[in-house]
């Protein structure tokens, strides 16, 4: 337990690992050179960047280190991938994606549809968050330039069958991109033998700092840069390299590979313990997403008849950091698009609460959360007009809806 409390919001961002920070610090002070420079100051940094590239290559199981392009993060990687393919295949006018993607993909697709005349096929999911494979196959066709489907969902942790989807896309002649921001470091990957053409990853989801990410671009794939300028990243992403960030990402990738087993055993067991304890202690709640096929660190529980922001505020008061798909936390009026896509009823969608663990989570912390959560839920339900004194839902039909 850190001084600031119990941090169970690792799908939002993670703490920079002290070892990662240690690798980065010299890049701010002694090794500050520009890797493009001809002198020794630059050369030292250039070497570090290539070391980092190899670490990311290893984590992804990529065939070549030159397939890794460093970017500013997941959003830039997603935008670069989609815009690059559309520019490289100008005659194709369709995009296939899913309804549960991150806004980095969805908002761009909305824009391309509205302003650039593209047709966007958004594939739906069932009530467990599994992709509708029939609809996916039906959407693939000669006009599809790119398929962009996330590897694992940030809210529920549900994993999509990426290899199968990539093979199908390939057979239909479309480029396959996956936003793997949540999956990298938690799911073993061998991109060298995969049909995946492009993959986005983000540093701050795996204990590297914010502002650094990478895009995997399979060798031979047609590529058009989004940022033009210098020759950095083999002219695929212009701009002087974020050297400390890149080195941090390299160090984080190395650590992630080392801790992959821990994530899938110890962390997974802690997650399961938390989830089972909550389900046992709190009435009228259920797990969203597909519990049989999801990230080892993610648990999303929907508490009926109460609202997520209020849950988070009370959790925060108890020193516990979590996250919610509730409308109120985002300032929008609709609950999370992921919850709606899965058909989670509104009575529960607003109370969906995500606990996302990391390798830093301890059993002591999980025990503390287990002790606190039932009281918080009971307190809010006692305030709720949808909940009767007897401890069960009741009829309540206010004037407008």
């Amino acid at each position, binding site marked *: 337990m850190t001084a600031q409390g119990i941090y169970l919001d690792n799908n939002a961002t993670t703490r920079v690992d002290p070892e990662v920070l240690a690798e980065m610090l010299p890049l701010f002070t002694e090794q500050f050179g520009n890797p493009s420079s001809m002198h020794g100051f630059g050369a030292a940094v250039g070497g570090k960047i290539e070391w980092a590239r190899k670490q990311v290559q290893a984590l992804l199981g990529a065939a070549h280190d030159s397939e890794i392009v460093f970017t500013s993060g997941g959003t830039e990687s997603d935008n670069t991938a989609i815009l690059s393919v559309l520019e490289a295949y100008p005659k194709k006018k369709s995009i296939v994606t899913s309804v549960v993607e991150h806004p980095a993909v969805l908002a761009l697709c909305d824009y391309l549809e509205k302003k650039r005349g593209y047709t966007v096929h958004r594939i739906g999911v069932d009530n467990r968050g599994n992709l509708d494979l029939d609809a996916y196959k039906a959407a693939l066709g000669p006009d599809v330039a790119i398929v962009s489907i996330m590897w694992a969902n940030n809210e529920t942790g549900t994993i999509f069958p990426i290899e199968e989807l990539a093979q199908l896309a390939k057979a239909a002649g479309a480029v396959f991109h996956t936003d793997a921001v949540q999956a990298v470091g938690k799911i073993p990957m061998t991109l060298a033998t995969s049909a995946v053409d492009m993959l986005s990853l983000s540093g701050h989801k795996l204990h590297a700092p914010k502002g650094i990410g990478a895009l995997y671009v399979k060798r031979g794939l047609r590529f058009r840069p989004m940022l033009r300028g210098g020759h950095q990243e083999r002219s695929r992403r212009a701009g002087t390299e974020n050297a400390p960030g890149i080195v941090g990402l390299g160090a984080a990738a190395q650590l992630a590979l080392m801790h992959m087993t821990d994530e899938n055993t110890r962390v997974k067991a802690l997650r399961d313990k938390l989830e089972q304890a909550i389900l046992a202690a709190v009435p009228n709640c259920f797990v969203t997403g597909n519990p049989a096929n999801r990230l080892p660190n993610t648990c999303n529980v929907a508490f009926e008849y109460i609202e997520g922001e*209020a849950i988070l505020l009370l959790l925060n008061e108890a020193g516990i950091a979590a996250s919610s798909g509730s409308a*109120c936390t985002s300032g*929008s009026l609709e609950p999370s698009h992921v919850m709606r896509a899965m058909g989670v009823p*509104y009575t529960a969608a607003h109370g969906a609460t995500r606990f996302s663990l990391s390798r830093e989570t301890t059993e002591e912390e999980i025990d503390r959360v287990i002790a606190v959560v039932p009281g918080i839920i009971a307190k809010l339900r006692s305030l709720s*007009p*949808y909940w009767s004194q007897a401890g069960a839902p009741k009829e309540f039909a206010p*004037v*407008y809806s």
Partner: protein
Amino acid sequence: MWNYTDKVKEHFFNPKNAGALDEANAVGEVGSITCGDALKLMMKVNPDSQVIEDAKFQTFGCGSAIASSSALTEMIIGKTVDEALAVTNRDIAEYLGGLPPEKMHCSVMGAEALRAAIANFKGEEWVDDHEEGELVCKCFGIDAAMIERAVTVNSLTTLEEVTHYTKAGGSCQTCHEKIEEVLEAVLAKTGALAPPKSHAPGTVGLDAIKPLAPKAEAAPAKLTNVQRMQKIMFAIEELRPQIQRDGGDVELVDIDGKDIYVRLTGACSGCSQSAGTMMGVQAKLVEALGEFVRVKPASLLPVGA
């Protein structure tokens, strides 16, 4: 994380008058679980004196919804029904020391529940007609539904007109793309538009947002420099008590055309919410002058000016 005031936190963590009121003779239920917030207000009104002797609430909603409900009950207990009717959503927000623009609808819900409960007490039928949409302009708290209505009712066609009628987009100007999208959508379906409805009493509707006075050149009597300066000074004097309540203060330093320089002192200096305070000062001055002005910290005063 929202920037909730201490007052909001106090009413959320320790809500006053939460729970059911069995002897209630005035009940108002508004909101819905679909929208993410709902409020049941229960009041015990003395039939002879018309005084609200007790009030309780049950709320499904976020922190500010619960705090608004709690504040509402505190504000109305002891008031007569007619006195209570004067309570607006702005009063609730002010009682709480302000709400983030995205959360103003929580105070609207409180004001509506109050009206619904009073209608229930009087045996009248209460119909809600308020609708809300995605928040577009965060500076002035204008949502898409309000812009749509303004565009429809006044046959607006340009971004500038929308800004003149609703203020949306008049401050930080980052929402212009969104305003244009709303505008385009409305213009695209002209003809299929229903006549305007009046809004729920006590809530802020379109009629509260009057078109700004025409720009200076069209104005029949342009303010003299002295008149303008006096207006600015008067508006700032009006704001001071509110800011002083938080332990801060504001002082007018200079006026340079559209740029008005002020200095925040006391608890305001270095406060994380000082940007919000500056925004509030600007909104006040824009309103007082009927023209767009920029409020800047005195530290930005050009050297030698």
